[in-house]
């Protein structure tokens, strides 16, 4: 009897440990990634399932390990790669993946140039990813229906086989734009049915992009002056309307350029000594100097800076 009680105690502690890890990881995700509500919700659900499964197993209940292959769809710069990396870490910490590394692959890594070249290439990548997560960016390039001799189909077949037979050994995440991914699945229903989680990454709003900008700056020990904040908001609104807008990545690039201008301004100003405040604060000039902010629309429509 006494034995039973103490056993229950350690069991509960064990699972509480896992629960605490899950809570900590989710809290960090919330703090470090802005927005992405549907993505975070799904990650929370998966984490809960893994914690509960552990608890069920401890009580001798059946807890078949779930299939966690996923598909991330969304526009450029919406955080797909970033979340995939986090996912690898979360699955590892929650005991689902043994290693927790992420192997990134595109068509070129999987598909060969001649007969007999594809299978070893695809298997090589799959073997490297085992114990972790395989992230296939722009997965639809694997499938080229217009060329019936295309070796991509061979890579897809090997992938399908391993996704099915080695479910406990690796998690496959496919990523790409939504419409193209849809078309890819139409041509490969077997792939669609093996993927349990289809997660859509929405575009960011202006407010979210502002928040992302501040987060990126804070991580690098910069900040915006109040006037610069207004300028940046204006910049984002304009940039969003232009071609090749890549959500958070465009923001990151804009901030990189702002840093350059900030450094040039400080050196050119002749002000000495430069205070810590000077070194940290981005002023509106840094943002207004962008081609996006110029009034003549010629510059704007060409490659946005």
């Amino acid at each position, binding site marked *: 009897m006494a034995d039973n009680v103490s056993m229950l105690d350690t069991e509960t502690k064990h699972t509480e440990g896992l629960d605490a890890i899950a809570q900590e990881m989710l809290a960090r995700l919330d703090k470090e990634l802005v927005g992405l509500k549907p993505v975070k919700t799904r990650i929370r659900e998966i984490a809960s399932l893994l914690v509960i499964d552990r608890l069920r197993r401890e009580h001798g209940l059946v807890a078949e390990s779930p299939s966690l292959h996923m598909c991330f769809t969304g526009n450029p710069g919406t955080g797909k790669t970033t979340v995939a990396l986090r996912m690898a870490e979360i699955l590892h910490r929650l005991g689902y993946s043994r290693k927790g590394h992420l192997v990134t692959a595109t068509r070129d890594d999987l598909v060969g140039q001649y007969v007999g070249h594809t299978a070893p290439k695809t298997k090589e990548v799959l073997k490297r990813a085992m114990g972790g997560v395989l992230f296939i960016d722009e997965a639809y390039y694997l499938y080229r229906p217009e060329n019936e001799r295309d070796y991509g189909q061979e890579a897809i077949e090997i992938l399908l086989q391993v996704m099915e037979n*080695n479910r406990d050994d690796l998690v496959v995440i496919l990523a790409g734009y939504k419409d193209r991914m849809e078309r890819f699945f139409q041509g490969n229903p077997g792939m669609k049915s093996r993927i349990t989680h289809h997660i859509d990454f929405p575009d960011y709003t202006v407010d979210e992009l502002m928040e992302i900008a501040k987060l990126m700056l804070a991580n690098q020990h910069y900040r915006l002056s109040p006037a610069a904040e207004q300028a940046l908001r204006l910049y984002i609104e304009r940039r969003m309307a232009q071609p090749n807008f890549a959500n958070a990545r465009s923001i990151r690039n804009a901030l990189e350029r702002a840093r350059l201008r900030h450094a040039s301004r400080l050196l050119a100003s002749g002000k000495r000594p430069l205070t810590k405040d000077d070194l940290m604060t981005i002023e509106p000039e840094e943002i207004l100097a962008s081609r996006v902010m110029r009034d003549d629309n010629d510059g704007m429509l060409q490659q946005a800076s």
Partner: protein
Amino acid sequence: MHLTQGTFSYLPPLTDEEIRAQVQYALDRGWSVAIEYTDDPHPRNVYWSLWGLPMFDVTDAAAVMMELEQCRKANPNLYIRISAYDRSKGRQTTALSFIVNRPAHEPGFHLERTDFADRQIRYTVRSYAANRPIGMRYRDDG
């Protein structure tokens, strides 16, 4: 006859779970693991064929087990071994090597004694299986 070579040769054959654990041990030490097979059981045979390439970038034993399964499917009745190669410290040597598959029937070795000067004897060990040509050894019909 039961051929014994390499690490763990004093143990009964390892189960797949034990093989997996040994492979993971090797990978965790940064050793690269290779799968080799042969139909010549002579202890001095160093010419085992490689199954694919040594697995340099693999971190999880599942990958090796997947290859082993395929190698077994292709060569169910041959000797297959797993070797782990330690390239650290310029050692350039096999750190671990053990048999993971063997023919259903192992006919064993013939020991030949040759007399020469002063009543000395030279010994030669010859596998019965190797009397047949390559490709014909360890087949069901013999």
